[in-house]
């Protein structure tokens, strides 16, 4: 295996991905990601010098519309999906003391 994923890398990816992994999951993730990157490294065989990266197949840019409200007030329905709510607001854990 060419790509060895270090403990630091998997820790860092866990922070980026906002995932908390157990030790066993971390070991599995290191293996899986290493294998996957070995496979993706195949792209390196292709010469892409001077090729423009293509994010979308059609060159659609700057799609604007008038900033007009078209939806109705669905506050109650929206809040009913929230794990916790209070006084018409989403409840979140305390973020500072």
């Amino acid at each position, binding site marked *: 295996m060419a790509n060895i994923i270090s403990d630091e890398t998997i820790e860092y990816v866990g922070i980026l991905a*906002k995932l908390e992994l157990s030790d066993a999951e971390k070991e599995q993730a290191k293996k899986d990601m290493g294998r996957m990157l070995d496979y993706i490294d195949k*792209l390196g065989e*292709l010469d892409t010098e001077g*090729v423009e990266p293509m994010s979308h197949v059609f060159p659609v840019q700057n799609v604007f519309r008038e900033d007009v409200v078209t939806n109705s007030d669905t506050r109650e329905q929206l809040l009913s999906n929230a794990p916790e709510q209070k006084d018409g607001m989403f409840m979140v854990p305390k973020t500072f003391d």
Partner: protein
Amino acid sequence: MSDMLHMTAVELAAAIRAGKTTAVEAAEAELARIEEKEKELNCYVTVDKERVMAQAKTVQKKIEDGELTGPLAGVPVAVKDNMCTEGLLTTCSSRILGNFVPTFTAEAVCNLEKAGAVILGKTNMDEFAMGSTTETSAYGVTKNPWNTEHVPGGSSGGSAAAVAAGECFYALGSDTGGSIRQPASFCGVVGMKPTYGTVSRYGLIAYGSSLDQIGPLAKDVTDCATVLEVIASHDKKDSTSVARQDTDFTRALTEDVKGMKIGIPRDYFGEGLNEEVKTAVLQAAKMLEEKGAIVEEFDLSLVDYAIPAYYTIAAAEASSNLERFDGIKYGYRTPEYEGLHNMYKKSRSEGFGEEVKRRIMLGSFVLSSGYYDAYYLKALKVKALIKKAFDEAFAKYDVILGPAAPTTAPKLGESLADPIQMYLGDIYTIAVNLAGLPGISLPCGKDSKGLPIGLQLIGDCFREKTLIQTAYTYEKARGAFL
């Protein structure tokens, strides 16, 4: 009308219009069928019987009042569980959305409802559409109606199996790397992924936004074209939606391939392709040749690079799209946590399944500083090369013909142990998404175990009609698929 369930969607709508049956009877028949088959197959995550019957009654009244006259009015449909439906549970087959009730309906589903569709329920899928077998669902596996020891394919496995089992007249699926065409192939039904931008993605829970498209799964090519015509629309709520004038797809339902140039990529018939699949697909090509098509082999090139490019791009987009699941506005929140960040991390880790976490981590990595150029940008450049290869092919051919998948449906439990091996099963479908092209899969035979084999036809952007015409001609030549 005891044989009603054997009708196609278009036939049923005609029977309802003619007063031979009603939308209410059709809905009742489907609910009875679902009751009978679900224990065995598990095609649906949610079926709300009261809602179904209420909608069927409303639709029937509108048909009788002459308000609904379209070719699908009154026909019951199943919708993949990644499309939002107002007031109806939408889980994406994930624990993290286990209690999510949308406040709006996806545009494609709205279009169906305006045409008089009766929504039977929400179909099972791979969690967040990540998988090829419908085994990564948090709500149990779906079984293949042709042989319940086998998978239905994925990720739209519930939709494909429901159509095959008569648990709906047609269904909507979504296709990011083959998720309509591959399960259609495994379940012996017709499935189509339209050109990117043809069907609005508004209300489709995003996986890989630059690749996702909604499309029909149906009993035959006529139903498929009819459904696509109804769901295609230019939608200002989806900034990638394309304004098209040529969405009268049913006009292409003609039996004629005389002079049609069909290219068979040699690279689609190499190592890894099952012999029985190969034989059936080439037999289908021969049939089209006999009908007057000009069939030639050619080298498409770059086929082996589509999968690594796809998984880089799809994982990158998924890692970004799935950041919204944070346990605050909707969805699952872990019961015990210490502070905000710990709540995020624990909710996500407990709410997402293994395959989803694997792709989020890979995506976060390929987008991270220091690796972005080497992986993500490289994949976008390869995508440009793949698009160019297709452009060159379509300069010579009207249609590209090949298999939808290298094998027929694998057995349950055989695929998930080796993710890369599973990803390789997408080899013939994935490049179509990268290039934004339309593709259709339709049954062209069965293997020695009696499992269906899918023929895939690929067209240039906006050439759905060419595909529909070719598929329709083949279907007529082939005869009924039983």
